């Protein structure tokens, strides 16, 4: 009997029902997409901020050189060993940096190279070093007895402009050293955990504060911003859902009066309406969840070029919120409706 009452009443009013379900769905979609994005934003933005380059420098713990840097930690997304040494060029003391330059350029995407990356027997002077030595791309530079071709000029705006970059093997040949003086490491995630791990491995570790500190502050702010926006939209969506539900129950006061006149108890009446609201909440919530997920996915692809991660908690939360709001918002008008004498309602407006 009860189920028949509920299904019948839903079926008879399908047009009105559709509007209510759409209202629930819209709210749920907003909640889902914003929650998904704001829970994901830290990781996504963190990845974006890695374009600032390395945020850790690893120095040898003992001795002067790191022979092999093999750190395996989930948060380390890149590492480039550098060999720094000073040598005299045209009777001027210049600092050289040997590295796998392709990897270095990848880690520091802002490196601006007028020319190409050097291969064996080629060098890449920073713009200040080049000015000091009067070098241009294509010139030859002699270090000791060997001569090298200048493959390009590096412009970064940082102290790297004073150095001459060369491939690692060439650097080791010229300096007669093996290994690296330091390793630049790019960390995505918990940087303090990585520092602890590397220190246990016997390395000396320094934070590049310019990058590491700013990144943390920026990520905190972004996350706070997204959480606030999500919260506002969530409250607004709940309130507008409340409006729709209230209206939809209010317009049925005649029906309620009739049911009462036929002897339906208050508890039973409330149960019928709550069941209806619950069904609408669940249906709208599920539809809204998937709509919201595709919205979040659209934003993720559009802005970060990445899939958003799907979290089951959000599904549960969305369903919970939509059902609860639907139920609570129908409770208010039901209480009003059942307190009214059926005679008054049925007599007319």
């Amino acid at each position, binding site marked *: 009997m009860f189920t028949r009452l509920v299904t019948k009443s839903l079926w008879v009013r399908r047009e009105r029902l559709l509007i209510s379900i759409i209202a629930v769905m819209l709210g749920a979609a907003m909640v889902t997409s*914003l929650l998904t994005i704001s829970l994901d934003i830290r990781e996504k933005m963190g990845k974006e901020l890695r374009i600032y380059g390395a945020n850790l420098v690893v120095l040898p713990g003992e001795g002067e050189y790191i022979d092999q840097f093999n750190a395996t930690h989930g948060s380390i997304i890149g590492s480039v060993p550098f060999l720094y040494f000073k040598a005299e060029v045209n009777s001027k003391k210049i600092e050289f940096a040997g590295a796998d330059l392709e990897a270095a350029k990848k880690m520091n995407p802002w490196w601006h190279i007028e020319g190409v990356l050097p291969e064996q027997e080629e060098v890449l002077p920073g713009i200040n070093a080049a000015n000091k030595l009067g070098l241009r791309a294509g010139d030859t530079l002699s270090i000791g007895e060997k001569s090298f071709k200048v493959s390009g000029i590096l412009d970064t705006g940082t102290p790297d402009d004073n150095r001459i970059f060369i491939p690692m093997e060439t650097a080791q040949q010229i300096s007669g050293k093996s290994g690296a003086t330091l390793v630049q490491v790019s960390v995505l995630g918990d940087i303090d955990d990585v520092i602890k791990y590397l220190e246990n491995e016997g390395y000396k570790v320094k934070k590049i504060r*310019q990058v590491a500190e700013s990144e943390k502050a920026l990520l905190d702010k972004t996350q706070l911003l997204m959480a606030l926006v999500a919260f506002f939209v969530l409250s607004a969506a709940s309130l507008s859902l409340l*409006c729709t539900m209230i209206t939809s129950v*209010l317009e049925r006061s005649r029906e309620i009066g009739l049911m009462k006149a036929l002897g339906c108890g208050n508890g039973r009446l409330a149960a019928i309406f709550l069941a209806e609201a619950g069904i609408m909440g669940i249906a709208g919530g599920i539809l809204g969840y998937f709509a919201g997920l595709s919205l979040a996915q659209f*934003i993720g692809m559009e802005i970060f070029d990445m899939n958003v991660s799907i979290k089951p908690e959000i599904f549960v939360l969305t369903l919970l919120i939509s059902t609860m709001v639907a139920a609570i918002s129908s409770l208010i008008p039901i209480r009003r409706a059942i307190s009214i004498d059926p005679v008054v309602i049925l007599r007319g407006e």
Partner: protein
Amino acid sequence: MFSRLLFSAIQRRKLRIVLAVLAVVMGASIASTLLTISFDINDKMGRELKSYGANILLQPSSEGAFINESELYRMKTIFWRHNIIGYSPYLSDTVKVKDTEIVLSGTYLDEEIRIPGINKTFIGNRKAQEKEATIRTGVKTIASWWKVDGEWPAPGEALVGVTAAEKLGLKQGDLFRAEFGSNNATFKVSGILSTGGDEDGQALVSLKDAQMLFEKQGKVDRVVVSALTKPEPREKIDPSLLPPGEYEIWYCTPYISSIMFQIEEVIDANARPIRQVADNEGKLLNKFEWLMFLITGIAMTTASLGVAAAMNTSIFERKKEIGLMKAIGADGNQIAGLFFAEAVVTGIIGGAIGILIGAVLARMVGIWVFGAIINPSFFSVLISGILSVGIALLGSMLPVKKAVGIEPSIILRGD
């Protein structure tokens, strides 16, 4: 008659009207909050990204030359002077400390610079006069990530980088003697500096002390400038090739290239972008702006649909009333006019309240997240206003059309 009808219709159905207005308030407040934040996000996030440090580097125009310290204030007199957040000049050279060579740099730590009043004439003879002002600037403002164990140095004191301190065996409170040619100076270590960058291997003193030691009074060899900029368009702009109109636009847009150009106009130096900061900033700002606008777009669409649904319901439930009006001789246009007028009133009241709420919310977000006030822009108010009235009208369109077509006899007979 019409206004009395409208007024009494609103009065009789107080609760329903309140609900419809509330729906509009919700929509308008979401729209106005998010729009306000979106329009301002570039500026606010730009300021946040300034924590990555300076984005412009000034170097002497020729090898071996210097920049005059006394000219530097002029960058606060250029067209985009308010976008120059701070600058700090450096004078560096290699000195000998305990027979070890290290780099010693002099810079502003936290200096107050006087900017003399300026008179400027803009297009159309509009005169702008600015009073004499001062700016506090130096590494404390520009390099906020520097960590100092101990005190910032006073004149005669020095900060020593952590690597240099280890190499020289210096601690806070120690004295060291720096020799440069035949000159020498003694500094007290006021603190140990760690940055993770090149400064770790250097010693840092006030600019005056360095100029005295190197005998280069009033000269600096490098200036870093922190400026708020707008992301440059993808194609490279060569200002000398632009036609006059576009040149004017380029000049009056805070691109990093136009700010550098304007600095070079007043200071004898070469300006270059610090690419690590300058290049990335534009990319990130574009992403932030996009993100906010997408979210705003989605939220506004949902809010509009909500408003439309609310309006739909509010007319739907008045079938009987419409039937009665028709029965006593109202024609379709009159009924439609009444409902549209109601929608406009709802939209205006709801929109006004919503915009106010939105302004307060955006302000709160600004204070909580950025520690700065976000003021509603003209456009965000305009768009939210148009949106709330427009959507209320649009949402009524469909049900009004239905209402006009109602056959009075059927409706009045009962359900």
